[in-house]
Structures are given as structure tokens and as C-alpha cells.
């Protein structure tokens, strides 16, 4: 057979394309459920990690159902009824103006304390970056955070997914003393104070990306969380706070949140 004739070349190419396409779509379809499961488990894992609960990927579903008590969608400081956070494509939402944006929110209960877990999404140097951040009941103090990225430079921007970076966010505040939203800035050459953390040398663009992401994403939650945390504090019987107080160090934060609540109201 003449393998160099035009008709042979056409037939060969056509057959090759069909075979390869069939093979790849078969593989993609067959593997898709497993891949989706992995992605879902990972996001559960990350949500839990932001409230400082470390679980393996296999255990993530069980732990998620145990600790996460509410899955909400917030728009303009109000809960959107009947919507689940998974219906929201965060990458699209963060580009919308604040008043049109639907913000997914997870509420975790751990050791009797309430934490608000907020998914984040933004842009780094080479591609998207994302993460989860959890706030304590006062809607300001950061309890935990973690970040990840698609394709930041290894050893530089990619370090945002390392614990030395994201652990810095613990106990920083997103609201200032007057209760006004200030976010947390990733500062090149060393950050200080309640609204700054240390940047990554050589990873300036990614660091700035994290700053912008925090500022942009958190803004959509401030009204709702402030309202909720002050309401929550009022509902809470005073005795209950006092009973809990000596048992756990973390509970010391509660009087503080009471203070900030007065200022807000």
C-alpha cells in the first residue's frame, strides 16, 4: 500500500483523530466521578483545615457532616433562601460588584464554639489562587486560614500553601477597633499589627494577590457577620458565658466580642 498517497494520508489522519478522541473521552468519562469526588473531598478537607481540624481525604466527608452545621449563601447582608454554597461558582461571583454577589458561607461548630468559614478566590501571578478563612464569633478575629494555587512559581509564590505563611493569619483582625472593615494585608518586608502579615520574598505578585483576594472576598460578608455576631451575643444568656469562661482559654475572647458588639450597635 502506498502510504504517501493523498487518500491514504487523509484516511489515516481521520482514523487517528477518531481513535484518539474516543479513547480520551472514554478515559475522561470513566475517571470523571473519581476526580470530582477527589475535588469535593479536598474542599471539605480545606474547609475543616481552616477551623484547624486536620483530617485525611477519606475521612473528610464524615468530619464535614459532623462539624459544619450550616451552609448558607449571603447576598447584601441577607441569607438567600434555598441556595446551597455548592451551586455557586466562586470564580464568577468574585468578579461581580458587591451588591450582586452571592457569597457562600459555612458555619462550623467546634467544642461548642461557632466559626464562620469563608471561601476565597482571587488571582496570583500565573493563575487563580484560592483558600478558606475562618473567623471567630466576633466576625473579626481570624481563627485559621489556608490557601492554595493553580500554578504559582514553586519556591516563591507557591509557598502560600505552606503553613509558615497561612498560620501567620491566626489572631489577626479583619475589622479595626471601630468595627470598620480593614481586611488583612500581606506586606512585603515584614508586617506588623493586627491587619498585616509577612509577605513572601520573591513572591510579590502572589502576595499582593492574596491581599486583594482577602479584601475583595471578605467585603461581601462583613454586614451579615457583624449583624449575626451581635445578635448572637445578645441571645446568649450571660450566665452561660461565665460558666464556660474558666474552662477554655479561647473563651476569653467572648467578653472582647461583647465589647466590639457594643461599638457596632
Amino acid at each position: 500500500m502506498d502510504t504517501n498517497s493523498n487518500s491514504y494520508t487523509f484516511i489515516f489522519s481521520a482514523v487517528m483523530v477518531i481513535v484518539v478522541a474516543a479513547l480520551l473521552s472514554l478515559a475522561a468519562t470513566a475517571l470523571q466521578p473519581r476526580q470530582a469526588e477527589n475535588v469535593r473531598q479536598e474542599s471539605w478537607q480545606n474547609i475543616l483545615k481552616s477551623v484547624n481540624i486536620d483530617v485525611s481525604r477519606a475521612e473528610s466527608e464524615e468530619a464535614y457532616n459532623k462539624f459544619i452545621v450550616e451552609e448558607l449563601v449571603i447576598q447584601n447582608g441577607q441569607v438567600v433562601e434555598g441556595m446551597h454554597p455548592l451551586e455557586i461558582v466562586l470564580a464568577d461571583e468574585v468578579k461581580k460588584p458587591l451588591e450582586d454577589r452571592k457569597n457562600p458561607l459555612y458555619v462550623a461548630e467546634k467544642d461548642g464554639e461557632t466559626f464562620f468559614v469563608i471561601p476565597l478566590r482571587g488571582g496570583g501571578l500565573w493563575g487563580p489562587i484560592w483558600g478558606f478563612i475562618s473567623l471567630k464569633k466576633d466576625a473579626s478575629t481570624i481563627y485559621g486560614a489556608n490557601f492554595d494555587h493553580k500554578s504559582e512559581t514553586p519556591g516563591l509564590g507557591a509557598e502560600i500553601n505552606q503553613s509558615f505563611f497561612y498560620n501567620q493569619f491566626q489572631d489577626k483582625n479583619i475589622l479595626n477597633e471601630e468595627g470598620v472593615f480593614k481586611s488583612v494585608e500581606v506586606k512585603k518586608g515584614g508586617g506588623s499589627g493586627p491587619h498585616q502579615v509577612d509577605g513572601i520574598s520573591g513572591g510579590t505578585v502572589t502576595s499582593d494577590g492574596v491581599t486583594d483576594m482577602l479584601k475583595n472576598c471578605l467585603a461581601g460578608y462583613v454586614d451579615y457577620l457583624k449583624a449575626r455576631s451581635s445578635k448572637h451575643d445578645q441571645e446568649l444568656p450571660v450566665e452561660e458565658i461565665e460558666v464556660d469562661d474558666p474552662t477554655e482559654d479561647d473563651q476569653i475572647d467572648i467578653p472582647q466580642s461583647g465589647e466590639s458588639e457594643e461599638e457596632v450597635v
Partner: protein
Amino acid sequence: MSTETVDKTKDKEPLFSKKNRKLLSDPMNDDNPITVQVLGICSALAITVQLKPAVVMAMSVVFVMAAGNIIISLLRNMIPQRVRIIVMLTVIAALVILVDQVLKAYLFDVSKQLSVFIGLIITNCIIMGRFEAFAMGNGVWKSFLDGVGNAAGYGVILILVSIFREFFGTGTLWGIQLIPESWYMSNGGFYSDNGMMLLPPMALISVALIIWVQRSYNRKLIEEN
């Protein structure tokens, strides 16, 4: 490799004859894809900041190259000459996508480590080079050996460069801190990591240093003029 000829007597030849062993060992030194043929430099530059991704990349390339060489070698008498480059590209792309999909499903954490690098295998000119120069003219077993040999030769350089860069750039290997924390200037010591190691140009400089060392040992690689 300059001595590529179709071996008519391959049926009688043992699997690991001297000639076949040479297919594996030549790319390690005398005919190394990176340091002698200077192919595949782009990925050597991109993924050698840390050891771990370099090792996984090397293993992925071994797989893609061995499998690709086998496929091309099987098809070598059917591929129309005029579209052979496109056929090769299709084979590489299909294999790489397959690897990526399988990793995402079964080795999710490794696939996260590699992220974009796995896609970069498609652009690795060594693979295309071996398809064109070897697999198109040789039998399946020889092509397999050639693929493994060349990918390993590529991987060895990748690993050397990444050890050099990770150690001097961040003081770690495989993510484990090797230089004592107390040596660092921030802790009152005398040492500071060389940030330049992490930047792409240092990959080229490291490769050049390896070429220099290799040629001073292996005199026959030095060109006449």
C-alpha cells in the same frame, strides 16, 4: 544517537545484548539529551526549583516516552511521511492527557504537586526528537529501551539541577530543612539562602556547569574546533 540502523537480525539477539544495553546507557552520558543534544531545556528551567516535582516529572517523562516510542514504533510503517510530525504530536498529547487524567483520579496529591508541569511534557522536544530519530526506524523493544534511556538521561540532569538549586536556594532537600536554622542570619548566624538560585536563569547556569564538568571528564565530547 548516530548509529541507528534497523537491525535485521533482531530475532536472534538477546534482549539485553551489548547493543541494547548501549541504548539505555548512552543517553546517560555520551548522548545525554540535555547536556549533549541540548534538548528539553525549557522544562529543565521550569521545574527544577525543588527536588520533588523534578523527580515526579522525570518519572512521568519516562512513562510518556517509553509508551510513545512503543506506539510510534508499532505504527512506523503505517504513518504517512508527510503528516508524521502531526501524528507524533497527537500520540504525545493523548498520552499526556491520559497520564494527567489518571493521576487526577488515583493519585490526586501527586497530580496537585505537578499541576501544570504534566502539561509541559507535551512541549518536551526530547520526546518528539526520539520519535523522529529512533522510533520511526526501529523495532518495538529497541524503541522502548531508547525511550527509557533518554527519559532517564533527561531525568538525571533534572534531578541534579534541582538538588543544586533547592539546596542552595532554600537550604532544603525534598522539603526537609538541611541547613541548621541557627546558621541563618535571621537567627544570628552567618548564612543566607541564595535567592538567585530560585530564579530561572540559575537553571541554565547549573546546566552549563554540569556540561562543563561532564566535558572535562568525557574528552570525546569536546568538538574539534
